[in-house]
């Protein structure tokens, strides 16, 4: 999806929840709790959104180019998330700055994830899970899990910020039914 259309969505109506700042453990837990308890009356649907939130937000926390020292002394990645409420689905968007050199790698990761059917994606997740934590490529597992849980492909896009940085946006649709 092109940046322009993603941003048209975001600047439109239907924003249910949004945040910009460091994705530290406190932020993850506070928003996680809110999502779990109050997005909709359907607790199973809330749980699905929660699962997507946790997996994607942790990626921002670990991989955002911009870091901020929190009160607890954590170096948390800075980013933005938005949840929008549409008639048939929720739209969950996350964005964070990245080194421009990583754009091609991330684009390939997202494209690879979207190329799998469900069985292929499960096999890919198993492959990633066997890698030791912190090893190159393990960050993909959160993206894979978000795709599996949401049962929709990733929307992703990149906005050039300057010669060295880009803004990476990843979004997933979570169907209400």
């Amino acid at each position, binding site marked *: 999806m092109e940046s322009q259309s993603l941003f048209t969505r975001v600047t439109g109506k239907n924003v249910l929840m949004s945040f910009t700042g460091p994705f530290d453990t406190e932020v993850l*837990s506070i928003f996680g709790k809110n999502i779990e308890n109050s997005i909709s009356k359907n607790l199973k649907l809330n749980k699905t959104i929660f*699962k997507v939130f*946790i997996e994607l937000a*942790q990626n921002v926390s670990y991989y955002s180019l911009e870091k901020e020292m929190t009160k607890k002394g954590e170096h948390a990645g800075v980013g933005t998330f938005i949840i929008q409420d549409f008639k048939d689905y929720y739209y969950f968007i996350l964005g964070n700055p990245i080194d421009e050199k990583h754009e091609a790698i991330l684009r390939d990761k997202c494209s690879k994830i979207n190329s799998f059917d469900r069985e292929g994606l*499960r096999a890919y997740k*198993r492959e990633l*899970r066997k890698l030791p*934590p912190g090893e190159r490529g393990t960050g993909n597992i*959160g993206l894979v899990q978000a795709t599996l849980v949401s049962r929709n492909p990733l929307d992703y896009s990149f906005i050039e910020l300057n010669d060295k940085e880009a803004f990476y946006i990843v979004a997933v649709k979570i169907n209400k039914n």
Partner: protein
Amino acid sequence: MENISIEGSHTNFFVPSVDFNFETGICILSGESFLEDTIEFYDPLVQWLEEYTSEIKKPITFEIKLTYFNTSTSRSILDLLNILKEYEDDGGEVTVNWHYDEDDIDMEEDIEDYMLDTGLEINMIPFDEDTD
């Protein structure tokens, strides 16, 4: 060797309940797992299981009743199941029962994938969350 007993909680993070008993050989992991430091939490469980399977060497029944775990936890669960599989391959008597909400298709797939990954037979036991 000592038993491990941890009371689970659901606050900012989700701590699973743990009841590993070396006298009965019954190990229960239940609740939800989304932790601030996954490795710090699961390392003692991994070590406990390694000690049990190398020193106690009695039958073991592993009961999993997790209703949610994140991908970070999923690696630690794989570590635990791999130890059980090695124990079984060495002649240990291992039973793994995984209780899951019958409506939770993601969990059902996760259990199937663990069986593929480890080669361990896992008894899949569905329950009805609304009535159980």
